[in-house]
């Protein structure tokens, strides 16, 4: 497994958040995001609570705001959709600077941006503080079927290999004067994707033979599954607990 302990979004560190067992972090993330999604969109203060929780988790993990912000870019298509909503949604209208905006659309847009950003930031904190093997064993602890985690494990392990193979094929094509601009030139892309499939398939077979040669008998060795202690669970669940309290107050109030 050497070389695959990290991935693109992992940030090396020794914070409490890094040390927490992955299963507790996954549980906390799921509960927290659920609380965010269930928060009534009118309760601004509850969103502030969620945001403070995320920021403190980022601070605990020693993550730089710039790192998280850069990753948030992935959300842009949905932000644009949210910006589009006030113009196309129906219902009562509000005049702002000569523009007529739908009130319903404004709420809808705010709802998407706020919840999407909070959820994304929370997942970034998890991915930045958890290595791949930890994440997989954490999933296994949470009863995700072995088949899923082992396929995911192989996938992550060979991702860079396959991507590198594709990169080399592309370079070879470019060096031979390939310059795709139009869809009817996409045949070369399709052909190389076909070649990539065959190479991936054959590599998969070779990997299996290599494993059997080294004594593989149908069972992957278990990841060192450290049981999370009650204290660790309580520490991890502190964050969603606060979020859920905020949601409960917001709904009942």
């Amino acid at each position: 497994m050497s070389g695959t302990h990290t991935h693109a979004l992992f940030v090396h560190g020794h914070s409490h958040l890094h040390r927490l067992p992955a299963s507790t972090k996954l549980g906390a993330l799921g509960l927290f995001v659920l609380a965010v999604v269930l928060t009534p969109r009118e309760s601004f203060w509850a969103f502030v609570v969620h945001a403070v929780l995320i920021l403190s988790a980022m601070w605990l993990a020693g993550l730089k705001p710039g790192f998280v912000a850069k990753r948030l870019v992935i959300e842009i298509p949905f932000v644009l959709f949210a910006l589009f909503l006030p113009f196309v949604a129906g219902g009562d209208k509000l005049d702002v600077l000569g523009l007529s905006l739908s009130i319903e659309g404004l709420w809808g847009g705010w709802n998407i941006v706020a919840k999407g950003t909070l959820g994304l930031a929370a997942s970034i904190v998890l991915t930045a503080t958890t290595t791949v093997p930890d994440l997989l064993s954490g999933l296994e602890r949470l009863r995700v079927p072995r088949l899923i985690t082992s396929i995911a494990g192989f996938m992550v392990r060979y991702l860079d290999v396959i991507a590198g193979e594709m990169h080399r094929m592309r370079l070879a094509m470019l060096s031979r004067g390939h310059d795709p601009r139009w869809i009817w030139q996409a045949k070369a892309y399709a052909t190389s994707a076909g070649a990539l499939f065959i190479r991936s398939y054959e590599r998969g077979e070779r990997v299996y033979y290599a494993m059997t040669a080294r004594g593989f008998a149908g069972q992957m060795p278990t990841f060192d599954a450290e049981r999370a202690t009650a204290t660790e669970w309580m520490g991890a669940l502190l964050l969603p607990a606060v979020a859920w309290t905020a949601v409960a107050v917001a709904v009942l109030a």
Partner: protein
Amino acid sequence: MHIPDGFINGVTSLGAGVVAVSGLGASLRRAGKELQDRQIPLAGLIAAFVFVLQMLNFPVVAGMSGHLLGGALAAILIGPWMGMVVVSVVVIVQALLFADGGISALGLNIVNMGLLTVLSGWLAYRLLMAVLPKKAGSVLLAGSLAAWFSVVVSSLGFVGEYAVGGAGGASLSTVLAAMSGTHSLIGIGEGLITAGVLGSVLAVRPDLVHGARLFGIRHADNAELSRRAVGAFIAGGIAVAILLVTVVAPRASSDPDGLERVAIDQGFADTASEQPLGDTPLSEYGVAGVEDEQLGTVLAGLIGLGVTFLAGVGLVLLARRSRGRVESR
């Protein structure tokens, strides 16, 4: 199209989670029969292949590009059950390792991209192969149509989820027209590339193509879609997109049962008298300067389709660029 958190409400997301878990569980059980330990590394490598395929852009028109979803392709290459497991694993890894797609929306994303594309693609493929002659050319033809279909079904899955628990306020028919219209265009690319990939695999290792093995197709020398088939496919896809935007969407909006809100162009028209937006070229159901109302509606729809398509492709490009940077480190 990875749905983020908050786009679809919590209850619907949880419901989709239940559907995703049971669908994935069922395909795991079915795949488990074929999936001996020999095939676990294989499945992992194919998952990596699908992931890389989704990272890769192919050209659409000058400067713009799209990428493959790969659901129908996976179904035809490795069978529907393995296909659903593999593509779902890709979606899960994207959510947990690359923060791509919301955690609460993981169920929705698995349903749309992992289950619906593979399942609908496979069903369409089987149906088409049942009537087509059993030879390599048919695999490509059925494959391309199935891939087109799978993309459109996946977008309809999103529309369905939006109808049940969409947070937003954009009317259902707007979303329906935008999603199904653009995706029947995107599907053209998906279909052509799928046919190309199938053709190149069939030429070298026909034994690896599950969908060909099933029908006893063992030889394929330079199987590719004819120029005429490609032309007909592109024209057909565009025609369906136009049909969806100009006929189905306005119909749906005047439908009495629930789909009561108005489409983009009609929304502008409704507010025309009292608002500045009424002066936009698309107001009054039609295009300014076009007298015939019927024609105007159609033109408005087409312009809307074009704009949506360009915006969609541009956004995909933007998102891919940023993702490419992160991953290429």
